[in-house]
């Protein structure tokens, strides 16, 4: 039993990483209605920017804020320059655009900062949290920030004009335009916010997985899986999905024989698909009724 509790705790700790990424994924899904494959790379690039700022002598929190602003503007710029011209293109072409963006960012980061692994500082320290060996203060801080972000987003979407406008633009773009919402800029805003949330995720994850251009590959997949599991329309579901995926993954690694590190991912994915087969819109997603 103690093994079980420990593994669940460890799962929650890794799950916090996925939850953070899943939140960014849901954010952009709300704004543009598909998954952005380049999200992880955008987050990685932001994290490198903050690392660079710290190398130049900025304190952690100053670099943190500067990176947030940079990512927000960067996200909007990417949308305006690269994806606005593609709005009318078929969906699959836009997905190809995400893959192209992925390739560009990854390659540029590799050229600027090279592919060696770098240490990344944490503001929370890494001593054991409340005497538990499994969760460090950094991981506890990460869970705290994720939950804080979730609450913040909830209030933003439920109680502000801009949040309401963004929801309207995503749900029914044409009707939203008719009542005077600038839907095109709402999409850009969605990109900016997703990039900023992604950069928070990146900066929180970097101390755990270390900083390098490919650090987000695995994390993004888990983030997608978590978001899909929780339901792509629900930020709360995404965070819960993140923790669940973390726990699944750890338990599968412990209790199923012959499961090495490499088999963890397929098993976690298989489990998620089984959930989806029973509940096709995810655990907390809304069912969309289709009309002919």
């Amino acid at each position: 039993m103690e093994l079980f509790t420990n593994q669940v705790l460890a799962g929650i700790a890794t799950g916090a990483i996925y939850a953070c990424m899943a939140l960014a994924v849901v954010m952009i899904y709300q704004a543009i209605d598909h998954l952005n494959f380049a999200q992880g790379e955008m987050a990685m690039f932001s994290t490198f920017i903050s690392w660079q700022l710290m190398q130049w002598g900025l304190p952690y929190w100053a670099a943190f804020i500067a990176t947030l602003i940079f990512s927000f503007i960067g996200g909007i710029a990417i949308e305006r320059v690269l994806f606005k011209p593609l709005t009318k293109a078929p969906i699959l072409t836009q997905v190809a655009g995400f893959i192209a963006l992925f390739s560009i960012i990854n390659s540029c980061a590799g050229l600027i900062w090279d592919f060696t692994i770098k240490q990344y500082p944490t503001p929370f320290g890494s001593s054991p949290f409340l005497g538990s060996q499994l969760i460090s203060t950094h991981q506890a801080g990460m869970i705290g920030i994720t939950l804080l972000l979730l609450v913040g987003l909830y209030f933003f979407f439920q109680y502000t004009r801009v949040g309401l406008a963004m929801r309207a633009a995503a749900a029914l773009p044409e009707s939203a335009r008719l009542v005077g919402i600038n839907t095109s800029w709402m999409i850009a805003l969605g990109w900016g916010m997703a990039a900023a949330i992604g950069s928070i995720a990146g900066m929180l994850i970097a101390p755990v997985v270390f900083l390098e251009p490919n650090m987000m590959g695995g994390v993004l997949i888990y983030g997608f899986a978590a978001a899909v599991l929780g339901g792509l329309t629900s930020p709360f579901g995404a965070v819960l999905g993140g923790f669940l995926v973390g726990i699944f993954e750890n338990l599968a690694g412990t209790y199923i024989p012959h499961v090495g590190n490499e088999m963890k991912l397929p098993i976690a994915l298989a489990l998620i698909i089984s959930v989806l087969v029973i509940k096709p819109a995810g655990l907390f997603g809304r069912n969309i009724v289709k009309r002919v």
Partner: protein
Amino acid sequence: MSAVEEIASQAPAVEAVPKRAMTLSSGTAFVIVLLLLVVPLFVKNFIIFQMTMLLIYGLAVLALNILTGGSGQFSLGNSAFYAIGAYTSAILMEQYNINYALTLPVAGVICFGAGFLFGQPALRLSGVYLALATFALATAMPQILKLGFFEKWTGGVQGLVVTKPDAPFGLPMSQDMWLYYFTLAITIAIYIFSVNLLRSRSGRAFMAIRDNEIAASAMGIDVATYKTLAFGVSAGITGVAGGLGAIAVQFVAPDSYTITLAISLFLGMVVGGVGWLPGSFVGSAFIIFVPNIAEGISKGLSGAVFGVLLFLVIFLVPHGSRQVAMVAQQLLGKLRK
């Protein structure tokens, strides 16, 4: 969540392609086949090898095109079927000494079965959810191939070396050239099969499901059967392509069939034009040659160059090579008048 359920009448993810626009006119097809037959006689062996790979990837993209462009289902898992086909051929040839040509139908049938079975749970999923499910298949496949349990047959992480077949009947041509013509024959056969499939009753059913699933089922189309059938056919063709790929490359290993391959196939389909069968081979040329070109322009930034080239293509022709072909056709039509 609110009790009110959202109602959406969404446009289908894959836009409708008129049936006639899915193929080439017979005159153009004749010229292309003639070129494919004659060119290898005048070029070096390495280029012949690349042309063989172009046809093989072209087949794999074609298979994806039948699934996505035909029946409107999205798959990132075709690399898994490619792997199954490649391993089936390699194992039959190396462990059981079966003639290479005979291994291909076996690979096709096994993959058809695998695709058909995978199509069952995938029935309940669509859009991003289906993408995630197929993606899971693609990430799991290399790990499954590495499992100790199968190592007796698959050779584990090291993979298997495949011998390249000689030209039969003492024909005076190199192994590469023989393999090229062998691949070309199979490609043409599968291409004709695919065109006819999409023109048949089943093909029309695929397209009806793609355009509007609810309306299709109201018209009496058995949606579940045809969706799984599309998965099966797509997987079967991919399997044959995989078998040919194993013979051409002379080597199979788990890490050749990762998610990167699936993404390449997807890009090939988009660049070629979703739902336009001849475009599959244009797309295949893109995924084979453009990474090399990008590497040639800048070694350190090859990924960025590739991304920029890809962006250029989708900016200029969002509908892929189909759009180029249509513009060309219109220009020709004007000239004739």
